[in-house]
C-alpha cells in the first residue's frame, strides 16, 4: 500500500512498510492487554490510535513539503499496480474509451477541418461572396450580371478587389492528335487569385489586364491536372496547350491542397476546378439580364465590415431605384467561409452532438464500472482510511487511477481515431469540402485529452463520493455497497437512459426521413440508365447546326448498339442542378392578371433531344414528346412544359397548342410532362420546361442511355460508338442514373449510418447499465427475497417486486429523453425530410425499442431472483 510517505530516491518495499506498521500495532495492543484491556478492545484502540493521528500527520506533511508531483508519481504507480491486479477491468475501460474517443476524435477532426479551421486564404474573414437578391421572382441568391460587377468595382471603395467567376467545362487537347480530355474549368477575372489571397505554387497568377479582350489566352491549372496529364513536367509552364481548341499558355500550377468551392455539402462540392482561364468579356457590355457570374469580393483591411456592407447596400438601393424599378433588388453578401459550409453545418453539428452524447453515455458507463470496482475494493479503501489515509488522499488515488485509465484510453483512441478518420474519409462522399485539410491535428488531440481528463474525473468522482461520504465505522460493519453509491449509480443510469433515448430518437427521425426520401418519386425511372457527358469541340463544330448534327449522329450511332433500348441527350439530367433559368410568360393563360411580375415565372429550362422522356421514363401527361422532326432551328420552335406550369397557367388542361414566351421567344407547347426533381430528392425545385436541342444547340450535353442489362458494363460500348463518330470526342464522365440518385443521398446516408452506430452503441451500454442495476438489487436483496419465497410469495410477485425500481428508472429516463428530444429537436429539424422533430410515431416507436431493451435487460437478473434457494439465501451475508 502506498499510503505512507516514501522518497523516490530509495523506494521502499511497501510490504515491508505494512509489516512495520503491523508490528507497531501488535506491540501497542499487546501492551494495552498487559494493562488489562481486553484483547479485542486493545486491538481496536491500537488501530484507532495509529490511524487517528496518521491523518493529521499526513496533512501536516503535505503542507510542509510541496511534493504533489512526487505524490502524483506515487499515485500513478499505485494506480498502475492496482490496475495490474485487475487487468480485465483495465482492458474493458481502456477499450471502451478508446472506441468512444476514436469516434469522437474522428468526427471532431472532420468538423474542425470543415467548419472551424480558417480557410487557407489570406485573411479569409474579409472574403465575401455576393449574390443578387431577386426576391420578387423568388430567387434570393441569383448570379450577378456583368454590368453589376463593373459597378461594384467602381462604386464600392471598401472593396479591395472584386472578381467574377464563371464555372463550366472545357476540352483540353484534341485536334492535334493528343487525347482530348473534358475538365472542369472556371473563367475568372485576372485579379481572382489576388482577391482570394491564394495562388499558384509554380509559375505565376494572372497579371492585371490579362482578362482584357484580345489578350493572349493564359491558364492556371490544378496540381492534379499538372501531374496526371503533364506528368508534373515543369517545362510545361509557359507552353501553349489547346483549351477548347484555342492555344492557351499555362502560366501557373496551383498547390495540391488548393480548393475553391463556394458551395458544398458533405456529399458534393462544386467539382474541383482543373483549369482557370481569364474571363475576357467586357463586363460593362454584358446583358443586364444575364445573371451568370459568381462574385468574390475582398473587403479592404483598413475598413470595417460594417462600412463595406453599408456601401454595398447603398449601391443596392441605387440599382433598385434604377434598372430594377424598385422591385426590391439587393446584393446578398455572404462570408465565403459561411457559404462554403452552409449545407454541411447542420449535418456536422448533429454528428458532433451525437458523438458527444455517446461519449457521455460511455462516461456514465465507466463511472458505473468504477463504482462497482470501488464497491469491491471498499474493504481495502476502508482499511486504508481506518489506518488514517485522509479522505482527500484516497480520493486522489481513486482519481489518479481513473485518470491513468482514461489517458491510456485517449492514447489508444487517438491511434484508433486516426485509423477511423481515414476510414471515415474513405466512405465519405467524394465531394467532401476541404477534404485535404482534414486530419488529426493539435486541436483534435487537445480536445481528446480534455475529454479524457473530464471522463477520468467523472469516472473517479462516483466512487469517491461513495467512499468519502461514508463513515468508517458503518463501512467496516457492512459489506455491501452503500446507499449513496446506489443513488449515484441510479443517477448515472438515468442519465444514460435519457441520452440514449435522445440518440435513438435522432436516429429514428433520420431513418424516417431517409425512408421517406427513398420513396420520393423523382419523376423519372433511374434504373438501367447510363449517362455519358460529352462536349462538342468548339473548334470543329461552330455553334448552331453543326453541333446539333453532331449530337444527332452520336445518338444514332448509340442507338445502333445492341442492348441500348433508348438514347437521348440533355444539358441538365435529373438531380444535376444543371439547368438554366429562363423567364416564361403564357399569353393565353386564363390566370394572367396583367401584372408582369405575377404572370412571368422564372423556370428551369434545358435543351433535350428526341426520345428524352421515353429514355428516362418520364411520364408524358398530355401531348407528345420531341421527335426527329425538330431537327433545325426553324422546325423546332416548340416546348414541353411540366405539370406544375400546366396546372398553374392552364387549369382547364388545355395547354397543348398554347404559346409560351420563353425569354421573349414564342414557342408552341406540344407536350406536358411530369415534373422531375432537378436538384436533389428533397426539393421539388422550380417549374420546368424543355426545349429542343435544335432550338438551343448546347455543346455540352449528357447523353442518357436506357440499357437492357447492367448499365455500367455497357459504358465501353457507348464510348466506342461515340469515338466511331469522332475519334477526338472528349468524354467527361460516365455514370449511372442510380449512382446519381445514390450520390444525392450520400450525405444523408453517412449521417444516418454514423448516428445509428452511435445510437446502437449507446443502447448497448444502457442495456448493460440497467442489467447491472437490477442485478445489484437482486444481489442486495437476496436474503429478503429468499424469505419471501420461503413464505410462499409466487414467482411473478417477486419478479415484479424486483422490477419495480428499474422500471421506474426506465420510465423516468424515457420521459426525460422525450423532453430532451423536444428541446434538441431544432438541431435536427434541418436534417429531416417529411418528418417533424416531434413526430409522435417515431418517438413512440423509439420509446418501445428502448423500453423493450430495458425490460429484457432487467428481466434477466430479476428472474434469477426467483431461483434463489431460501436456505442458501438465509445463510448468505
Amino acid at each position: 500500500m502506498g499510503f505512507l510517505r516514501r522518497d523516490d530516491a530509495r523506494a521502499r518495499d511497501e510490504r515491508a512498510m505494512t509489516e512495520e506498521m503491523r508490528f507497531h500495532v501488535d506491540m501497542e495492543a499487546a501492551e494495552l492487554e498487559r494493562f488489562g484491556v481486553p484483547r479485542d478492545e486493545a486491538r481496536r484502540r491500537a488501530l484507532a490510535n495509529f490511524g487517528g493521528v496518521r491523518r493529521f500527520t499526513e496533512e501536516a506533511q503535505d503542507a510542509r513539503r510541496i511534493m504533489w508531483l512526487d505524490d502524483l508519481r506515487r499515485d500513478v504507480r499505485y494506480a498502475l499496480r492496482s490496475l495490474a491486479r485487475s487487468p480485465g477491468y483495465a482492458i474493458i475501460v481502456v477499450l471502451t474509451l478508446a472506441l468512444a474517443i476514436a469516434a469522437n476524435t474522428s468526427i471532431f477532426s472532420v468538423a474542425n477541418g470543415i467548419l472551424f479551421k480558417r480557410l487557407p486564404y489570406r485573411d479569409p474573414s474579409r472574403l465575401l461572396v455576393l449574390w443578387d437578391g431577386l426576391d420578387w421572382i423568388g430567387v434570393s441568391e441569383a448570379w450577378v450580371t456583368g454590368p453589376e460587377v463593373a459597378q461594384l468595382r467602381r462604386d464600392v471603395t471598401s472593396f479591395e478587389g472584386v472578381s467574377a467567376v464563371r464555372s463550366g467545362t472545357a476540352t483540353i487537347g484534341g485536334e492535334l492528335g493528343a487525347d482530348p480530355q473534358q475538365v472542369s474549368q472556371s473563367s475568372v477575372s485576372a485579379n481572382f487569385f489576388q482577391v482570394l489571397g491564394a495562388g499558384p505554387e509554380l509559375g505565376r497568377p494572372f497579371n492585371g489586364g490579362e482578362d482584357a479582350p484580345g489578350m493572349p489566352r493564359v491558364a492556371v491549372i490544378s496540381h492534379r491536372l499538372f501531374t496526371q496529364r503533364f506528368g508534373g513536367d515543369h517545362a510545361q509552364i509557359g507552353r501553349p496547350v489547346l483549351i477548347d481548341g484555342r492555344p492557351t499558355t499555362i502560366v501557373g500550377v496551383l498547390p495540391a491542397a488548393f480548393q475553391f468551392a463556394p458551395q458544398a455539402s458533405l456529399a458534393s462540392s462544386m467539382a474541383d476546378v482543373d483549369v482557370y482561364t481569364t474571363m475576357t468579356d467586357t463586363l460593362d457590355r454584358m446583358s443586364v439580364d444575364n445573371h451568370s457570374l459568381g462574385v468574390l469580393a475582398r473587403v479592404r483591411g483598413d475598413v470595417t465590415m460594417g462600412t463595406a456592407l453599408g456601401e454595398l447596400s447603398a449601391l443596392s438601393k441605387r440599382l433598385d431605384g434604377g434598372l430594377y424599378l424598385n422591385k426590391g433588388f439587393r446584393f446578398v453578401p455572404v462570408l465565403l467561409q459561411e457559404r462554403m459550409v452552409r449545407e454541411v453545418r447542420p449535418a456536422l453539428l448533429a454528428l458532433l452532438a451525437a458523438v458527444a452524447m455517446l461519449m457521455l453515455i460511455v462516461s456514465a458507463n465507466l463511472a458505473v464500472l468504477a463504482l462497482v470496482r470501488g464497491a469491491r475494493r471498499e474493504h481495502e479503501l476502508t482499511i486504508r482510511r481506518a489506518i488514517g489515509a485522509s479522505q482527500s488522499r484516497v480520493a486522489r488515488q481513486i482519481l489518479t487511477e481513473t485518470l491513468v485509465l482514461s489517458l491510456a484510453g485517449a492514447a489508444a483512441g487517438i491511434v484508433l481515431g486516426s485509423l477511423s478518420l481515414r476510414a471515415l474519409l474513405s466512405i465519405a462522399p467524394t465531394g467532401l469540402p476541404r477534404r485535404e485539410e482534414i486530419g488529426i491535428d493539435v486541436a483534435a488531440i487537445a480536445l481528446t485529452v480534455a475529454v479524457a481528463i473530464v471522463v477520468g474525473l467523472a469516472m473517479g468522482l462516483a466512487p469517491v463520493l461513495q467512499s468519502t461520504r461514508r463513515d468508517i465505522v458503518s463501512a467496516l460493519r457492512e459489506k455491501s455497497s452503500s446507499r449513496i453509491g446506489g443513488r449515484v449509480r441510479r443517477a448515472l443510469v438515468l442519465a444514460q437512459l435519457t441520452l440514449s433515448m435522445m440518440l435513438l430518437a435522432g436516429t429514428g427521425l433520420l431513418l424516417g426521413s431517409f425512408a421517406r426520401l427513398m420513396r420520393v418519386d423523382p419523376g423519372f425511372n433511374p434504373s438501367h440508365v447510363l449517362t455519358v457527358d460529352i462536349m462538342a469541340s468548339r473548334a470543329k463544330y461552330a455553334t448552331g447546326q453543326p453541333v446539333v448534327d453532331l449530337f444527332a449522329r452520336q445518338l444514332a450511332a448509340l442507338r445502333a448498339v445492341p442492348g441500348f433500348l433508348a438514347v437521348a441527350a440533355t444539358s441538365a439530367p435529373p438531380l444535376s442542378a444543371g439547368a438554366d433559368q429562363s423567364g416564361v410568360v403564357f399569353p393565353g393563360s386564363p390566370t394572367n392578371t396583367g401584372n408582369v411580375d405575377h404572370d412571368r415565372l422564372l423556370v428551369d429550362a434545358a435543351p433535350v433531344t428526341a426520345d428524352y422522356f421515353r429514355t428516362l421514363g418520364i411520364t408524358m401527361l398530355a401531348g407528345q414528346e420531341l421527335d426527329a422532326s425538330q431537327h433545325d432551328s426553324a422546325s423546332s420552335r416548340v416546348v414541353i412544359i411540366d405539370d406544375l406550369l400546366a396546372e398553374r397557367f392552364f387549369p382547364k388542361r388545355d395547354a397543348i397548342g398554347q404559346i409560351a414566351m420563353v425569354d421573349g421567344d414564342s414557342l408552341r407547347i406540344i407536350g406536358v410532362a411530369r415534373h422531375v426533381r432537378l436538384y436533389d430528392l428533397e426539393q421539388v425545385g422550380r417549374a420546368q420546361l424543355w426545349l429542343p436541342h435544335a432550338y438551343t444547340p448546347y455543346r455540352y450535353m449528357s447523353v442518357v442511355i436506357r440499357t437492357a442489362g447492367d448499365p455500367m458494363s455497357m459504358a465501353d460500348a457507348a464510348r466506342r460508338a461515340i469515338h466511331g463518330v469522332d475519334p477526338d470526342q472528349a468524354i467527361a464522365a460516365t455514370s449511372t442514373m442510380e449512382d446519381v440518385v445514390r450520390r444525392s443521398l450520400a450525405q444523408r446516408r453517412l449521417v444516418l449510418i454514423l448516428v445509428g452506430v452511435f445510437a446502437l452503441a449507446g443502447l448497448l451500454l444502457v442495456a448493460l447499465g440497467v442489467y447491472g442495476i437490477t442485478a445489484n438489487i437482486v444481489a442486495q436483496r437476496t436474503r429478503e427475497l429468499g424469505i419471501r419465497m420461503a413464505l410462499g410469495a409466487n414467482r411473478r410477485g417477486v419478479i415484479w417486486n424486483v422490477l419495480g425500481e428499474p422500471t421506474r428508472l426506465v420510465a423516468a429516463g424515457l420521459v426525460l429523453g422525450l423532453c430532451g428530444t423536444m428541446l434538441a429537436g431544432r438541431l435536427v429539424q434541418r436534417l429531416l425530410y417529411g418528418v417533424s422533430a416531434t413526430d409522435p410515431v417515431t418517438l413512440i416507436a423509439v420509446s418501445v425499442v428502448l423500453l423493450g431493451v430495458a425490460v429484457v435487460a432487467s428481466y434477466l437478473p430479476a428472474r434469477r431472483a426467483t431461483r434463489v434457494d431460501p436456505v442458501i439465501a438465509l445463510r448468505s451475508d
Partner: protein
Amino acid sequence: MATRTDLLQGTLDLLILRTLRAGELHGWGISKRVRSLSNDVLQISQGSLYPALYRLEDRRLIDASWGISTEGRKAKFYRLTDLGREALAQERASWRAFAGAIEAVLKGT
C-alpha cells in the same frame, strides 16, 4: 494515560535522534523510550513517528535494517549515522538556545 504535550514542530527529529544515540531501536521501542524518558509527558503519535523516521532515513541521518525483536518478531531497527550524530549535536545546541530564550522571556515578566 498521562497528559499529552503536543510536540513542537521539529522537536520530533531531535527526540528520535537523541533516543537512538544509545543504540539501535525499532519504531515501537523509540516511541516507548521517549514516553518513559519524558515521564509519560511526551508521547509520539505513531502516525508522525514513521514518516519522521523515513524522512530522517532519507536525509541519511539514520540507518535502518531488518532484525529480530526481543519478542522474537521481525522488526525494523534504526540507528544513528555519523551525519545523524552531527545533526543531533547541532539540533541539541539550537534547542537549548531556543529553550533558554523562552525561559528568559518567561522569567522577564
